[in-house]
């Protein structure tokens, strides 16, 4: 929760339609998971709907319709709290494969607009439309085209921000939500930015926000009018300069097309906090197997295995280790993730969540493979590929590694 006294301005604004030089477009799907679910359940349109684990009380809200948001529900909120806030809401379990499919359809619309598309996640992307103007018209017209094509071809709504820099475009799309379009003309950037709370700036998290608050800086204008030297002293040279630049609308980042996934990971919040290492081990094995599956499906290999552990008091630690050679094999990921866990030397710490993540990703067929001296003709990777085929045919629960099957609930919970 923001400690700042300045609230984000709400409501529609209009800075005029002058889109000269505003070649950066940020598109953000509205309540993406929820909107995709409503395609399947049209009778729920207009009702509060929450996407999240429908059993247990310990997951978090992945998405919610605007009707649910009106009741105070938001993403990443614990499900238990969301249920209290919106007891009448319909809760639907997530269908990740379906979201990925819809995302591909949306991204292919973007690709037909411009080759310079930088997806940020399944439901969000930057487009540089400078080269599309001659073919498709002015940026504002292109933004409207994107909105109508997404609505007509995919059936969900999105919000679009148009500006001359990435971070202003992103702020604009957020401000126009839901189902809106906001152009920030180049000469109105300062007028748009300065009333915003400091937390709107890219790179300002809770901690920096507190730091700024202690300096009495609450709005972007406050930062803009603080001498650069003062900011650098308070926040460090890089961060100080960065925020000062942003406060004046300066952001030199270009739209980088097809940025590959930076990491692939899964995590699991337990039904009850636990210190049972055998059980945690089975969950790490299951997560590693799942991450391996996703890596193979995406045709990626990764070099670094990261383990995340969140304790009952929400303290969170991550540990990572870089492998000698890149892998997409669940068993290798598991071995390293478990070694990282064991190296923590935990005794009786109660654990709430574990996560396994692969970083340092590269395309498998472009990554040189260090061969093994004693590679069996059919190794563990072949076994996992066979498991992939079985799961494709008989469903995700068809087969899993033996060491991941100690049950779905912590022992204390049974």
């Amino acid at each position: 929760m923001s400690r700042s006294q300045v609230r984000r301005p709400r409501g529609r604004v209009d800075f005029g339609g002058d889109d000269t030089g505003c070649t950066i477009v940020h598109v953000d799907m509205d309540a993406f998971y929820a909107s995709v679910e409503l395609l399947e359940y049209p009778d729920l349109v207009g009702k509060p709907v929450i996407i999240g684990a429908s059993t247990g009380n310990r997951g978090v809200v992945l998405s919610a319709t605007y009707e649910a948001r009106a009741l105070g529900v938001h993403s990443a909120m614990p499900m238990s709290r969301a249920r209290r806030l919106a007891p009448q809401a319909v809760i639907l379990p997530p269908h990740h494969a379906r979201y990925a499919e819809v995302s591909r359809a949306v991204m292919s619309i973007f690709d037909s607009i411009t080759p310079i598309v930088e997806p940020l996640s399944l439901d969000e992307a930057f487009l540089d439309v400078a080269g599309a103007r001659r073919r498709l018209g002015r940026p504002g017209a292109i933004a409207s085209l994107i909105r109508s094509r997404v609505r007509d071809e995919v059936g969900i709504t999105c919000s679009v921000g148009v500006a001359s820099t990435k971070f202003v475009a992103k702020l604009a799309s957020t401000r126009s939500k839901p189902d809106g379009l906001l152009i920030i003309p180049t000469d109105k950037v300062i007028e748009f930015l300065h009333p915003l709370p400091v937390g709107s700036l890219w790179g300002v998290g809770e901690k920096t926000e507190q730091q700024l608050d202690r300096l009495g800086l609450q709005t972007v204008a406050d930062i803009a009018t603080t001498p650069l030297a003062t900011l650098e002293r308070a926040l460090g040279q890089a961060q100080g300069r960065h925020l000062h630049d942003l406060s004046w609308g300066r952001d030199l980042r270009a739209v980088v097309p097809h940025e590959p996934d930076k990491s692939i990971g899964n995590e699991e919040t337990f039904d009850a906090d636990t210190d049972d290492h055998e059980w945690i081990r089975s969950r790490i094995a299951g997560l590693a197997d799942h991450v391996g599956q996703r890596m193979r499906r995406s045709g990626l290999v990764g070099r670094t295995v990261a383990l995340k552990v969140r304790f009952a008091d929400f303290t969170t630690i991550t540990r990572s280790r870089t492998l000698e050679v890149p892998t997409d094999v669940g068993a290798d990921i598991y071995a390293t993730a478990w070694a990282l866990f064991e190296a923590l030397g935990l005794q009786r710490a109660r654990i709430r969540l574990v996560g396994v993540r692969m970083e340092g990703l590269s395309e498998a067929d472009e990554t040189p493979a260090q061969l093994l001296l004693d590679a069996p003709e059919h190794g563990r990777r072949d076994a996992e590929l066979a498991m992939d085929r079985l799961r494709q045919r008989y469903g995700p629960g068809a087969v899993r590694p033996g060491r991941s099957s100690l049950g779905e609930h912590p022992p204390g919970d049974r």
Partner: protein
Amino acid sequence: MKIRVERDALADAVAWSARTLPTRPSLPVLAGVVFSAAGDSITLSSFDYEVSTRVEIDADVESAGSALVSGRLLADIARSLPAQPVVIAAEGSRVTITCGRASFTLPTLPIDDYPAMPEMPQSSGTLDGDTFASAVAQVAIAAGRDDTLPTLTGIRMEIDGDSVVLAATDRYRLAVRELSWTPASSSTQAELLIPAKTLADAAKSFGSAETVTVALAPDGERLIGFEGDRRRTTSRLLDGEFPKYRSLLPNESSTHAVVDTAALIEAVKRVALVAERNTPVRLTFTQGEVGLRAGTGDDAQAEEALEASVTGDDIEIAFNPGYLLDGLTAIDAGQAQFAFTQSTRPAVLSGIVEDQVRSEYRYLLMPVRLTG
């Protein structure tokens, strides 16, 4: 206990003993070094349930006795003392170290809580310290560092009469060294797996010793000891089945190439500057020449060519530059000989000294499969 000792001898002994101290001791007392004074020498020992060390140095012993003090602190102090004789005195729960006009007072750790150290087994034979150090260093480079595969973090030692074979592999390369020793009994036979890091450290510190004694414990004890130069160390053995490495050594080859080792090392280092993140160096052997190349596509690229005497088929093969350099350095010979079969099969690297292939050391290196 009260003793007087040479500053350099003390600093060396403490540094050697402290090196094996555990960083996170399972018992607080294991962070200590045991001092014992008797006769005209003192011994310093450390132990972490895996490795024990014991070093003896000359000293004027005014009164015998023993004390346990923090090893890290002691090492830091010993290293920084001025070049003057050192007087160490234990009284009650304190140890005073005086050197010139500097003086330190350290609390002692409860020596009664210190666990019993393993006995040094009986000598099984001896070998030359320098040979031992270089042989172990040659194989240790190929040992695995990944503790999720503990068996591969060891060096395999096979003893049969007067021959010793050392081998290590991380599954990407395999290093095998044969040497001879002087066994106590000509019928000695043993197969052991020793933690590579411990063995490499021990062998290095015995490098200046004229002879190193190897002490094999009876089978059930899972322990090996080394002694030389008034230092001794014991190590727990690793469990597990070491890979059947002999079957990995190829029997034949279709290409032989001989290259100047130092020139190739220099060239690989240069070309590898552009080999980012595990990308390989490609070697193309043709008549009279080896071409080196690294970097692909839009990334930085580098090329270099060297003279080579090549017999047999031309071959293009790619290696992890780090592994290749390890092998070229380890052969410790003016010329390097490569034996190849295919670009996806292991290459055997050995040294040539005065036109003789030195077959006592072989470094088997698995290539990187190229893409595209």
